[in-house]
């Protein structure tokens, strides 16, 4: 037992404490979990609850579009379908949140498959446009059946997630942490346990070659669409119960752009970049709003930050930071902290010497 714990500790020390990026992530998550005790203000809790929820949403976009290269400009579809399903079940049938959210997520999976199947033949911008069309078409459908969907009002009077603000926050945060960990694991190209990561990368890089390597890309693409739909659906279900309304605004074009903006800002093809993007941009804008001048210029400010950051860090903020605090060993490709001169594993020099 003791030795096991010791090994665990050594693993922790070697794999997490030695890599600055992971240390930052660890500190960040810890802080999030302590947040209600540090700043118990309801507005702050609200902002961070929403941020956590959007983090799932953004990460699920990165999972689909970043990792597999299936550029999805209509990601709001999965979110919206799930939010509507959860709200429908809850409002019309009184199903409680713990059931509606998973069912909503399943609805997200179905939406994912419905988009994924036609998308199999399409690529690049063609795919992007078809996906962009779906939520807009769905808005049309929603307006056709106002009795069921509530038309422009949406479905309101949805049950609250739990009774208390803090509990709401923890539920969302826990679900978000778990979802993001799962997505991160699924996409980890170096993982020795789950091999999907490397295959997803391969499909993004060159689908034809992937097929010539014997990979059934159809299956994987559908899988990715449904997993992404699932997690976007989780976010959508949480949203319906948190904001307590599911309306057409969550299917609008801009709502689809949001996860893309966050992800690109944070760093595409990373999952954690999407999360960081949300947690930087969203609270920032909300906090700037507290000032009357900030309220007017908040979006201008956000956009300027976005543009400036992308101009200098075209791959997003986390990847830039990572490149500046971490060094990859030229020989064994292990991640080292920038300050080291020799690789922590293979002792190869980390800096070129002439």
């Amino acid at each position, binding site marked *: 037992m003791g030795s096991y714990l010791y090994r665990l500790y050594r693993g922790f020390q070697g794999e997490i404490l030695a890599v600055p990026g992971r240390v930052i992530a660890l500190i960040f998550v810890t802080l999030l979990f302590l947040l209600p005790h540090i700043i118990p203000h309801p507005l702050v809790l609200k902002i961070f609850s929403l941020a956590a929820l959007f983090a799932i949403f953004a990460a699920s976009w990165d999972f689909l579009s970043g990792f597999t290269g299936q550029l999805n400009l209509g990601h709001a579809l999965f979110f919206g379908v799930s939010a509507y399903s959860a709200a429908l079940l809850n409002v019309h049938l009184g199903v409680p949140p713990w059931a509606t959210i998973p069912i909503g997520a399943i609805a997200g999976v179905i939406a994912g498959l419905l988009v994924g199947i036609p998308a199999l033949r399409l690529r690049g911008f063609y795919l992007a*446009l*078809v996906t962009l069309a779906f939520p807009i078409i769905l808005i*049309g459908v929603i307006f056709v059946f106002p009795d069921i969907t509530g038309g422009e009002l949406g479905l309101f009077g949805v049950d609250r997630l739990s009774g208390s603000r803090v509990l709401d926050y923890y539920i969302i945060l826990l679900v978000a942490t778990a979802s993001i960990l799962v997505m991160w694991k699924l996409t980890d190209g170096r993982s020795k346990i789950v091999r999907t990561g490397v295959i997803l990368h391969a499909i993004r890089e060159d689908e034809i070659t992937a097929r010539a390597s014997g990979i059934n890309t159809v299956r994987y693409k559908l899988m990715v669409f449904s997993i992404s739909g699932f997690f976007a659906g989780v976010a959508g279900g949480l949203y319906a119960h948190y904001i307590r309304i599911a309306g057409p605004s969550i299917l609008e074009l801009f709502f689809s752009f949001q996860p893309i*903006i966050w992800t690109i800002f944070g760093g595409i093809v990373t999952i954690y970049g999407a999360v960081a993007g949300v947690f930087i941009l969203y609270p920032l804008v909300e906090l700037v709003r507290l000032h009357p001048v900030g309220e007017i*210029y908040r979006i201008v400010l956000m956009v300027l930050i*976005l543009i400036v950051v992308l101009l200098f860090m*075209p791959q997003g903020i986390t990847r830039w930071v990572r490149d500046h605090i971490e060094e990859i060993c030229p020989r064994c490709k292990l991640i080292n902290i920038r300050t080291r001169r020799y690789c922590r594993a293979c002792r190869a020099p980390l800096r070129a010497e002439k």
Partner: protein
Amino acid sequence: MVEAILINGLVLGGMYAVLAVGFALVFGVAKILNMAHTAFYMVGAYLILIMSIMLGFPSLPSIVLAIAIMGITGRVIYKLFLDRVKEHPVAVMIISVGVAILFQEVLLIGFGGHFRGIDPFIHGFVEIGGIRAAYQQVIAIVTSLLALVAIRLLLSKTQVGNAIRAVAEDREIANVMGIDVSRICVITMGISAVLAAVAGAVVAPVFMVHPLMWLHPLTIVLAAVVLGGLGSIKGSILGAFILGFAETAVIFLVPMGAFLRGAVGLSVMVVVLLLRPEGLFGVVFEEERL
């Protein structure tokens, strides 16, 4: 009914085509996903509005001036924001979305979110067999066809046109051929911004002017260009007309469902793309079919 659908579809398609033609150049041909294109259209419309209504300039000079300013704006925007990241297409996309939102916010703050209008060149309408079309809409059709011809000439007959296509395909190799990639992109953006401003002068008087006016046309132009097939200008124009006809048909055939016109237009696009994944006139390599 049929002639009404035909004429109205033509009229609507003409307006969509004017909006789409500049985008077809910058996105379809040059493959720069400039999401701010319709925001340029919006800014062009606002410039005309400011000059002709607020400052009281006569309309033709204000239009010419607006087009000139937009031509420069397009180039400046490219130089400032997009040139640096041209190797990262998603960054280009997001930055251009950012630029569009920036325009939107600046206009919102500066002018408020009010609906405004600019005057058409000629007031009034023509009547063909009892069906009325505003002069401005006829002008739109003519403009779109003129622009189509001009761009096709540019692309097929001039070195710059050839270079635009080359740059879109392979920037690195274009360099080696002595093509200044940045300059070609700047030129492309300039031309497309000019065309966006032309759309501002031609289309905005029929629609209306307000700071969110870029969003709806954005889906239209994206759909038109992709429907026609990337790389093909005539495809984009055709795509615009197809959308126009589809939408008009909805209004005449199911008036109760007129609100579905956008959804139906996009559905038509989806169906076409499922049948022809490369769009109507897009290039496809058979061995890369999925």
